[in-house]
């Protein structure tokens, strides 16, 4: 592994135990930073609005992203379309701290992801199971997140993906060494990465939860299931009192094991985002890119 990949994995390690928040303006970025976000995701429309608007969804305007970079001192991430090498190069050129090669945007390539080893800038990618996570890491992703259905406020898919990934990790850990070749075939994942999981009982990169997290309890649930931090997309700025909800989710991630504190944090947060059930929607974003 080259030095750049290592440095990029290291940055994700510094984000652990934190909350990464979607923001669409410098003002929202400042609110997120003050509430305790460990990074922000700069995008023109949050996933709930992307879903409502329909049509093709693309990388955000670099001018808008730069405005957010100037507004905060914490890392700034931005999304490019799956397989869109040129969008990724543009984001690298404006010195984004992390690129999310994201299924929330319309895919530019329906079979291939970007060869992320060719970039100096780090990438986070979504994954629904262990095989998908290891394929993305093989392509150079230095951080993984679940692909919970974005913009729904429904945490069910993020739970499904995290549970599946963790149980597959436990299974790989329990195999005999001579069974790893077959496991790599079944998972459709690089053998060296399967061997890493077998030896270490975890992914070689940081693993966050994303998709449908709307409450402190949702965040605590994802930490309980093995997430090392959470992304909150529409859940904050689609709610009644974004600053208060954001700060409560940040504290919930740190003290997810303390139910009394979680009860206090959950009090009087105002209305959560309305949300739609993930099985009532037409566009299934988690199916994008495998």
């Amino acid at each position: 592994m080259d030095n750049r990949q290592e440095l990029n994995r290291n940055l994700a390690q510094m984000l652990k135990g934190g909350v990464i928040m979607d923001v669409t303006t410098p003002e929202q970025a400042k609110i997120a930073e003050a509430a305790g976000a460990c990074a922000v995701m700069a995008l023109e429309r949050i996933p709930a609005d992307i879903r409502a608007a329909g049509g093709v969804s693309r990388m955000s305007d670099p001018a808008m992203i730069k405005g957010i970079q100037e507004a905060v001192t914490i890392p700034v991430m931005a999304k490019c379309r799956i397989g869109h090498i040129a969008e990724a190069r543009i984001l690298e050129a404006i010195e984004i701290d992390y690129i999310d090669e994201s299924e929330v945007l319309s895919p530019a390539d329906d079979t291939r992801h970007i060869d992320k080893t060719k970039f100096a800038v780090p990438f986070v990618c979504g994954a629904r199971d262990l095989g998908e996570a290891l394929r993305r890491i093989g392509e150079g992703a230095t951080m993984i997140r679940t692909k919970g259905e974005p913009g729904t406020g429904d945490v069910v898919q993020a739970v499904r993906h995290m549970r599946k990934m963790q149980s597959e990790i436990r299974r790989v850990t329990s195999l005999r060494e001579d069974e790893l070749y077959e496991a790599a075939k079944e998972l459709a994942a690089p053998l060296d990465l399967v061997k890493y999981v077998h030896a270490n009982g975890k992914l070689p990169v940081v693993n966050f939860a994303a998709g449908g997290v709307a409450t402190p309890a949702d965040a605590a649930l994802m930490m309980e299931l093995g997430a090392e931090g959470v992304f909150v997309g529409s859940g904050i700025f689609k709610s009644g009192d974004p600053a208060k909800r954001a700060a409560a989710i940040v504290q919930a991630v740190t003290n997810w094991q303390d139910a009394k504190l979680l009860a206090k944090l959950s009090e009087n947060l105002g209305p959560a985002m309305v949300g739609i059930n993930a099985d009532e929607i037409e566009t299934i974003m988690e199916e994008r890119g495998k």
Partner: protein
Amino acid sequence: MKTGVLAVQGAFAEMSAYWRAKGADTFEIRQRRDLERDFDLLALPGGESTVQGKLLNDLGLFGPLKERIEHGLPVFAVCAGLILLADLFKLLPVTVKRNAYGRQLGSFTTVGMWDGHPGTKMTFIRAPAITSVAPNVEVLSTFNGQPTSVKWNNITAFTWHPELQLEKQNHKKY
């Protein structure tokens, strides 16, 4: 030795592993009641200093920790931890510039002299720089003439990440 690792946000698991490898017992400090335990070293991990600073206040950890550090509790701090000691606790007389090497594309590794080892690998992740130090602060390592680790009474603090070397050995093959 018993090490309390501040675990409100950041790379606290790596910091705990680093001290366990040195033979210490470690536990995580996530809220005020964790401070009821006895410990003889406080470790402040890397992460985002704005987040950690806010949580120290929100969780009521700031006052009690400041008091203990003032009373001589040994502290080992990296990156965000150094920023907290200098700018929030105001217990380390150095001036710090945050994100001094720029955004993530400015993160780098170098090899330098530390603790008698000339080949020490030093990893800087969106690192701060120490731009000046008070007269009695001992400088332990430098990069381009600027201090990158310092010792002041009971405090040892780094702008780079000694705790990440452990994991790196493990990752080499992959």
